[in-house]
């Protein structure tokens, strides 16, 4: 029934349009019918004013957007390098708004001012080398500045000093979840390869590697404030991207290779929750949620939980049907809390031992050589046998 209605409306719309064009055509009878579809001076006038109106629309819409939606944007970076990123961003924004305001202003102002008139003749102005040079050189100079600043920041962020004292954590991505592996007291991650995945060793850690013995695998990410964290990312199946927006951090996770990103958190979760902007944002979100809850309850569904802020790790590279729900909570602790949290955790080796203990399996792990190059040998397993 609804579809019939829709069809009727569409037909009526088409008829209305047809009628409209007929009326337009009739108004032009008498005029030279050949030229009737070419802009007349009257058209130029009307469209010229509309151009001016559109300029106003762009300006007002921009200002409205900045006021209304500006506060939605990410605020106060939670990492040390985030300040550098944000200040470059702000400089770039100022530049963009100035250029945008001037160029759009000129474009639509000229459109309005020089709207056509039968009695006028345009100025024959074909070229001017000085002007061309001016608007080649000015962008070049401005961009040179941006490039230099950008490269300075980029090199600062992306290259981790080998001697730097960092905490090494592996982020392991798979459809559709994140896992973290801590390097333990030796601060070196044991070797790993997806070919070694077996039982509860879901990350394929090579348990014969001495560095693996103290590795800890957890599903919640805790990091200490004020200490540089060096993430090493792996993926088990397809591309994923580890996106931590509040830390201005993102790196793809690529099957077959290890990627990395490092940053220093500067606010604990508790501190970040107390930032005025975050308090306001959370209150706003909760007012939206409670409004929605009322609707849901009316429909007989369960109400939404109130929201408290947590740092998040999101997947930001399309990775499959449930890509939109691949996330992990990040908790930034004080160094003491962090130490305590980590000390409670069992190592992977202990977990495997515990799992193996009840029914011992001969030569479970650790029987192979430490090299992982020979892993191909183990891959006779069934090939792409799809159900």
């Amino acid at each position: 029934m609804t579809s019939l209605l829709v069809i009727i409306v569409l037909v009526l719309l088409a008829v209305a349009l047809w009628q409209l064009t007929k009326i337009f055509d009739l108004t032009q009878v008498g005029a030279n019918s050949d030229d009737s579809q070419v802009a007349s001076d009257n058209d130029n006038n009307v469209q010229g004013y509309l151009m001016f109106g559109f300029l106003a629309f762009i300006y007002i819409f921009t200002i409205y957007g900045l006021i209304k939606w500006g506060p939605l944007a990410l605020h106060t970076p939670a990492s040390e390098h985030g300040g550098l990123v944000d200040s470059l961003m702000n400089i770039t924004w100022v530049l963009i708004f100035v250029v945008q305001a001037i160029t759009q202003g000129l474009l639509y102002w000229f459109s309005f001012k020089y709207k056509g008139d039968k009695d006028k003749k345009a100025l024959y102005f074909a070229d001017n080398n000085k002007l061309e040079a001016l608007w080649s050189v000015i962008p070049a100079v401005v961009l040179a500045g941006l490039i230099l600043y950008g490269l300075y920041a980029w090199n600062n962020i992306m290259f981790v000093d080998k001697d730097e004292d960092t905490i090494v954590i592996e982020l392991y991505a798979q459809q559709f979840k994140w896992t973290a592996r801590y390097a333990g007291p030796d601060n070196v991650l044991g070797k790993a390869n997806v070919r070694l995945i077996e039982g509860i060793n879901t990350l394929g850690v090579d348990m014969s590697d001495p560095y693996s013995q103290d590795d800890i695998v957890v599903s919640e990410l805790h990091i200490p404030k004020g200490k540089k964290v060096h993430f090493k990312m792996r993926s088990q199946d397809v591309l994923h991207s580890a996106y931590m927006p509040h830390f201005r951090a993102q790196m793809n996770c690529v099957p077959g290779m290890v990627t990395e990103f490092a940053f220093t958190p500067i606010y604990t979760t508790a501190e970040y929750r107390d930032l005025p902007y975050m308090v306001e944002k959370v209150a706003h979100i909760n007012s939206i949620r409670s409004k929605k809850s009322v609707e849901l309850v009316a429909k007989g569904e369960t109400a939404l939980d109130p929201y408290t802020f947590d740092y998040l790790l999101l997947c930001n590279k399309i990775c499959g049907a449930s890509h939109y729900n691949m996330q992990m909570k990040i908790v930034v602790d004080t160094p003491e809390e962090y130490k305590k949290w980590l000390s409670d955790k069992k190592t992977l080796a202990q977990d495997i031992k515990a799992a193996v203990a009840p029914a011992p399996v001969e030569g479970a792990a650790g029987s192979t050589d430490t090299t992982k190059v020979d892993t191909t040998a183990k891959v006779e397993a069934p090939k792409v046998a799809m159900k």
Partner: protein
Amino acid sequence: MSAEGHDHGQDHEHEHHHKETFITKYIFSIDHKMIAKQYLLTGIIMGVIGIAMSLLFRMQLAWPEESFKIFNILLGDKFAPNGVMANDVYLALVTIHGTIMVFFVLTAGLSGTFSNLLIPLQIGARDMASGFMNMISYWLFFLSAVVMLSSLFVEAGPASAGWTIYPPLSALPQAIPGSGTGMTLWLVSMAIFIASSLMGSLNYIVTVINLRTKGMSMTRLPLTIWTFFVTAVIGVISFPVLLSAALLLIFDRSFGTSFFLSDIYIAGEVLHYQGGSPVLFEHLFWFLGHPEVYIVILPAMGLVSEIMATNSRKPIFGYRAMIMSVLAIAFLSTIVWGHHMFISGMNPFLGSVFTFTTLLIAIPSAVKAFNWITTLWKGNLQFNPAMLFSIGMVSTFITGGLTGIILGDSTLDINVHDTYFVIAHFHLVMGISALYGMFAGIYHWFPKMYGRMLNKNLGYIHFWVTAVCAYGVFFPMHFIGLAGLPRRYYTNTNFPLFDDLQNVNVLITTFALVGGAFQLVFLYNFFSSIFYGKKAVQNPWKSTTLEWTTPVEHIHGNWPGEIPHVYRWPYDYSNPNYDVDFVPQNVPMKEGEEVLHH
């Protein structure tokens, strides 16, 4: 006969004694004008499908997981049970929307239409260098479109790995259902498409180089021809690389090679792939993928330059600077692809290099924008619908281009990469801008194509609603991107953090639906004017270029008599030496007349 087209000594009283049947005239035509119309029609149909898809997934984003009858009608019980769009279908729609719009509408639909129509007409040639190859090129394009659309009907659904089809997702049916038969058809379709595109491009290049009429030196070519020519060159350089990427991916998928795959554990088993790298695919893909955006936007720039000059009744400002900037953009476009890969895991040093080259491209782009604005200055602007769309194109190109300074800067890209900020940026700078260029071209050259005029008032309605809606859709999108909302999310309801973005999404979708609906005005205008439009005069816009010296009624070979000779550049509008405000290219210089431009 095209080969003889260059020979001006001969009389070309046309030798089409052979009888044209319906099939040779309308279907397997080798006439460039008919082929242009075929491209346009196919492009419009694909455009309707592509835009309709975007409206569907926009509805899902605004009202997540709500039931819509229209979903059930269009997608069926399997893909939209009870009218709720399934999550992998969302990804399929996003993927096919991107593919269709980028390749089938804005590459083939735009470039194919106007290169075919205008190259012979504006350079003074009887037809393309090879009319037969031109015909094959169109029919391969048509075939690729059919294959692409047929992938919508396979059981597991069409390709769903995003239009960038990054492996391993695109290689493994275990990872997403669309990577089965759907992806195979996608790859086959693209391979055919690339073959079509290469044939077209070679034809354009050869035609422009060899078949210019007497007097038509390279520095007397209209800017349209320059952009089509350069676009074709970029296409010839970069499309084969995508073809190789597609072929290697086909090998990985079907023959067990490991070009792009390594160390994969999925669905409970280890796959045999070893030693490949998805990053290699990204490099190959973007080596086409980035030039591709210029393949899309350059022809639009050419059309807009031409239309702006004509309707401003002024020469395009800085003709040579415009050519230089097109060449500079074309060159730079081939060495900036890495800016799509700053955080792909490639060496950060490469990120520095690509930041540098990427931001350089802003310079020729700025030159173009300022030159267009200066063209308007002290003009006598004739606001035909084509002119409105041209001004609109400059506007969205600037708005979208400026945010490129953020995305092209590796440091800033870290946090906005793959968010809605990117969507807003590229839709404005190459999506909407190229679409405006295409609309401008259609409004301007419709009389040349069909011998009739489009209705201008419907054109005005079409433009203004589209202009407001385009900004209404993409301007707010920047903000939800800056809030950190990733693209390609079926819904963001799993993140309370993003709950405050929901009403922005509703606003965006509302603008999209209104804007989408008003494209019907254009469709109505287009199809009704083909049959019932006002008869066009020979040169309705009082333009200087050669296509307006041909008769309104199409003839094979374009000019009934000899091909006109060219005596001046294409932008003699309001030349102070003449009383009329335009002097066509085929008008000889007056005695003692000086050339007033560089």
